[in-house]
């Protein structure tokens, strides 16, 4: 199981300071929900798409669509049932399938959704998980919370593998119920879930002991997270990101 979201590539998004990048992404995501003209939303989407394309290549840049394709399809299906007012655009017989208002609403919602999807994808694909964690630390995330996230990522593959192994072991011992479907399938998984939980819970005392050995909880700290630099590059990157967010906001206002 892959528990990292970083996709290696090239371009300015990989060079940008993660702190500046995070602030920019949050600002742009908020700006999309302001009373933005439709062209503004799609301009931002185009910028996000081009940035992703430039960073990870054409094939990868289309993959976020796979994650949101179904919901966009459902949105298309619901066009005839939303906003019945306005000038009819698509009419079959006496049935109005789409009005100007409903199409405008669909375009706005779709634009917002895909823009936010691409902006957040851009951030998590072009920033290493370590840098994301250090960014949160820089924004005053407590040491214990950062440690919890680090340990979580360390244990995700281990627990996923444990679950698969337990499931395989249980499937060997099942007889008629092994191919059960419907609601039975839900209850057949119960022993596997219980075993996985117990297996994971048993590792807690050992993990706690390991943490104590490394000095966690002690008044004398033996280890800590490194800090991201506070150099001139951070200021420059923050300035650039601020300028991008302000330019987009001004475009909307004007």
């Amino acid at each position, binding site marked *: 199981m892959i528990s990292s979201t970083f996709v290696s590539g090239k371009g300015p998004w990989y060079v940008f300071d993660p702190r500046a990048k995070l602030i920019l992404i949050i600002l742009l995501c908020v700006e999309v929900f302001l009373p933005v003209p439709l062209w503004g939303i799609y301009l931002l989407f185009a910028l996000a798409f081009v940035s992703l394309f430039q960073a990870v290549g054409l094939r990868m840049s289309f993959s976020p669509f796979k994650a949101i394709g179904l919901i966009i399809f459902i949105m298309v299906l619901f066009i005839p049932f939303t906003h019945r007012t306005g000038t009819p655009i698509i009419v079959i017989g006496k049935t109005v399938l789409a009005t100007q208002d409903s199409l405008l609403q669909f375009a706005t919602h779709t634009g917002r959704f895909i823009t936010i999807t691409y902006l957040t994808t851009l951030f998590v694909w072009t920033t290493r998980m370590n840098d994301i964690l250090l960014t949160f630390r820089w924004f005053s995330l407590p040491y214990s919370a950062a440690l919890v996230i680090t340990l979580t990522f360390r244990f995700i593959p281990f627990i996923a593998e444990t679950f698969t192994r337990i499931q395989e072991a249980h499937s060997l011992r099942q007889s008629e119920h092994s191919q059960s479907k419907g609601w039975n399938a839900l209850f057949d998984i119960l022993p596997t879930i219980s075993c996985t939980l117990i297996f994971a*819970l048993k590792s807690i005392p050992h993990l706690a002991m390991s943490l104590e050995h490394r000095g966690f909880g002690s008044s004398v700290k033996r280890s800590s997270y490194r800090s991201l630099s506070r150099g001139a590059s951070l200021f420059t990157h923050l300035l650039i990101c601020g300028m991008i967010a302000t330019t987009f906001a001004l475009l909307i206002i004007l």
Partner: protein
Amino acid sequence: MDKNENRIALKVALIAILTALTTVFTIVVRVPTPIKGYISLCDVVIVFSAYLFGPWTALITGGLGTAIADVIGGYSQWAPFSFLIHGLQGAVIGLIAKKASKSGVVSDASLLSVIGAGLLGTVIMVGGYFFVGGLFYGFEPAATEIPMNLIQAIVGVVLGIAVTKTVRKAYPPVRFLTW
């Protein structure tokens, strides 16, 4: 090292493992439903955490575990909302179970109160995703997700209660892990 320091390490270890479990049960463990769909079992771990370890543990592990799952699974736009919705779901379930327990220990709460808490948690989860979905892509399309979210949450409550009972019997030392 005094007892308090020992408990801090235990708390961090417990929360990290439960968060990892929530993430794995969200991404990896998917169960086919009779209506040709799949549901994730994250709610099982959230109910389990709330019922066995209390509201604060469920708040952190439920919220963080599902948010990490969203980021890993390619749905990073949902991560902050999953953190809030599932975190609140776990906290409410744990809080009600704790209030309903005479001894003040969450896992001693009566079955009826746990079911009631689970149902309220279900309302929070389903309502929360409907509201956020409505903001993202309109309330009519968001309403189509209600049935699957409802099934997922109810299955989570039923399996969560069953799993909690099983784990308490099969692994009695679990009571030493509570805080």
